[in-house]
């Protein structure tokens, strides 16, 4: 609903005050709906963070809370005693430390008031539940960092994604410039062919490419993941071309009259004008390469030391499936960079998606 129609809606509803109240209720209702939906939607992230900070033993312990916690203990007269949730005579639950355990009655002490001395409680202590206190276990992160060899995986991912983005963006700028500023026979046909490659499943070219890389000795190296990107990809070219078309041609012509050649015009007129689109394309491509799984899996299956984060993380997941706390900690570390960059550069992302997507 647009702002105009919303205002009309409000004006029609009787007195101004009444309309105002109704508008506010509607706004609060919609906002509440959105908050509820987004909370459920992002709940898995809360789960991940909570699990990553838990001790492995908490996952299987009965009665353990959902947040990271440890069974509480209390030091009394130089000894550590476990704390239990004990129903007091009036029915309230109290966190008391068990200092002397017997079958039918036991001796507790109140950690909040130890000077009051031991309290004898009648009942079976084995039926009591342990008292959990909030506690963050940060060891999972250090443990996962070493086990997965994150420094190695990060370096590999940065190198592969960085090089492939550099090649992809430079080649896409050249090709988009060619398509947007020059007339040559067959240009429109060529452009349609390029767009058609979007629906060409990469599996169709997979086996022959694999055979050729095998012949080159490139299997088990980064080359198959980098070199093909130096030849422009349809998504990037399309987005940049659409943007280049919006740059006034008078700017090129003025530069041409001043004697600038095509490369000079590209460098000093087009590229500076198209920075937002170039940033969007670079971000998209970098994170596409960062997240890519299938091709690194195919080409680096036998080389764990050269694998990027995605492949290394999946391998780790298969090996340590019995230790969810470690795995969730590793997942947090793997997603930290893309998510932080996303929040910093969200405008560029959103604009890029809409700009590139709708026109197609």
């Amino acid at each position: 609903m647009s702002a105009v129609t919303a205002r009309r809606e409000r004006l029609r509803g009787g007195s101004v005050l009444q309309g105002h109240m109704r508008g506010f209720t509607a706004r609060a209702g919609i906002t509440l709906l959105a908050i509820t939906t987004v909370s459920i939607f992002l709940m898995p992230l809360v789960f991940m963070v909570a699990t990553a900070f838990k001790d492995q033993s908490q996952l299987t312990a009965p009665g353990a809370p959902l947040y990271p916690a440890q069974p509480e203990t209390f030091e009394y007269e130089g000894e550590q005693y476990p704390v239990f949730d004990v129903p007091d005579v009036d029915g309230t639950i109290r966190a008391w430390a068990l200092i002397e355990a017997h079958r039918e009655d036991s001796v507790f002490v109140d950690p909040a008031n130890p000077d009051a001395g031991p309290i004898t409680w009648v009942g079976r202590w084995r039926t009591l539940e342990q008292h959990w206190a909030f506690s963050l276990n940060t060891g999972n992160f250090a443990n996962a960092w070493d086990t997965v060899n994150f420094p190695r995986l990060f370096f590999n991912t940065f190198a592969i994604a960085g090089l492939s983005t550099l090649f992809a963006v430079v080649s896409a700028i050249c090709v988009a410039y060619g398509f947007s500023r020059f007339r040559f026979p067959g240009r429109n046909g060529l452009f349609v062919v390029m767009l058609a490659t979007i629906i060409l499943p990469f599996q169709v070219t997979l086996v022959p490419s694999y055979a050729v890389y095998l012949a080159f000795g490139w299997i088990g190296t980064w080359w198959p993941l980098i070199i093909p990107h130096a030849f422009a990809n349809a998504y990037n070219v399309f987005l940049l071309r659409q943007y280049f078309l919006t740059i006034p041609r008078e700017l090129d012509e003025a530069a041409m009259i001043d004697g600038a050649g095509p490369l000079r015009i590209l460098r000093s007129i087009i590229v500076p004008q198209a920075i937002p689109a170039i940033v969007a394309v670079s971000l998209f491509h970098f994170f596409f390469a960062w997240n890519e799984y299938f091709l690194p899996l195919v080409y680096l299956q036998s080389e764990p030391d050269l694998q990027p984060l995605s492949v290394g993380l999946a391998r780790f997941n298969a090996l340590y499936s019995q230790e969810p706390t470690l795995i969730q900690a590793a997942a947090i570390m793997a997603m930290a960079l893309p998510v932080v960059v996303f929040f910093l550069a969200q405008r560029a992302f959103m604009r890029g998606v809409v700009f590139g997507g709708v026109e197609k």
Partner: protein
Amino acid sequence: MAMTPHTTGSAALPIGAVPTRWGRLTSRESLTGLAFVAPFIIGFVVFSALPMIASLVLSFTDFDPRRADETRFIGLDNYARMLRDPVLLQSLWVTVRFALLVVPLTLGFALAVALLVNNTLLFGRSVFRTLFYMPMQIPIVASTIVWIGVLNAQNGWLNYGLGAVGIDGPNWLQSATWVGPSLALMGLWGIGNMMLIFLAGLQSVPTELYDAARVDGAGVWGRFRHVTLPMISPVLFYNLIIALIATFQYFTQAYVVSNGRGDPDRATLFFNLNLFREAFTFFNMGYASALAWLLFVIVLGLTIVLFRTAGSWVFEGSER
């Protein structure tokens, strides 16, 4: 696809020059343009066209890279084998069943979220847009790992939540019945791009249409049904095609969930996972090439059928 013809640079042709085809091709402007487009042309030939032909040729052989010298032409054997390959038929069924579930589900959810975050009554719309888009930015392997945790039968939060309302949740990822719905649920995290494209579509609907519908007495549903839906049908169509193609290429989530085996009971053996296994686990690369061509034909066929039917339900404004 709007192509914008333009006339710049025609000054580079000397006035009165005869524009023969060869003349046009070798003119300065053409050569410069071709030089800039060359990376695409070379890349297309080397990384798309030639491999496509090679892949078609390989699909008629029993190519195995470990004994490439012994490769023989076996005619249509690979294609004949498809007809009696129960694993392939199973993988097709898994993929089609999943598409029927996940495509309407994600399209509907993405549209609902887009309507929500496009509502002018909502406070902080851009914050909500960002939050709904955010999971897109999480590496797929990492987000799959998060969901494996959430769906864990013993300590995952989904069954915990279901237990709180008295439902005994299934063992999601280990059950052949429930693993499909589980993956569809995960798919809801990937609505970001769809949502933004719907959003752009919603924002291009002229507000006068809503006013006119209101004058005609249309309620909220009437306005959605008779104004919004027809006006955004082009973006709905675009999202539908992209979603269908993506489903036939579905791989990473299925691979991570089943450690590459398609467990349980081949219920996650999607078409693409089966292809990967034929090519890189069993090295039946001739057969894998044939499977890749089958995939291509399916995707192309779906796209063509959808474009054919588009005329009857996709609204084309006079401008488009």
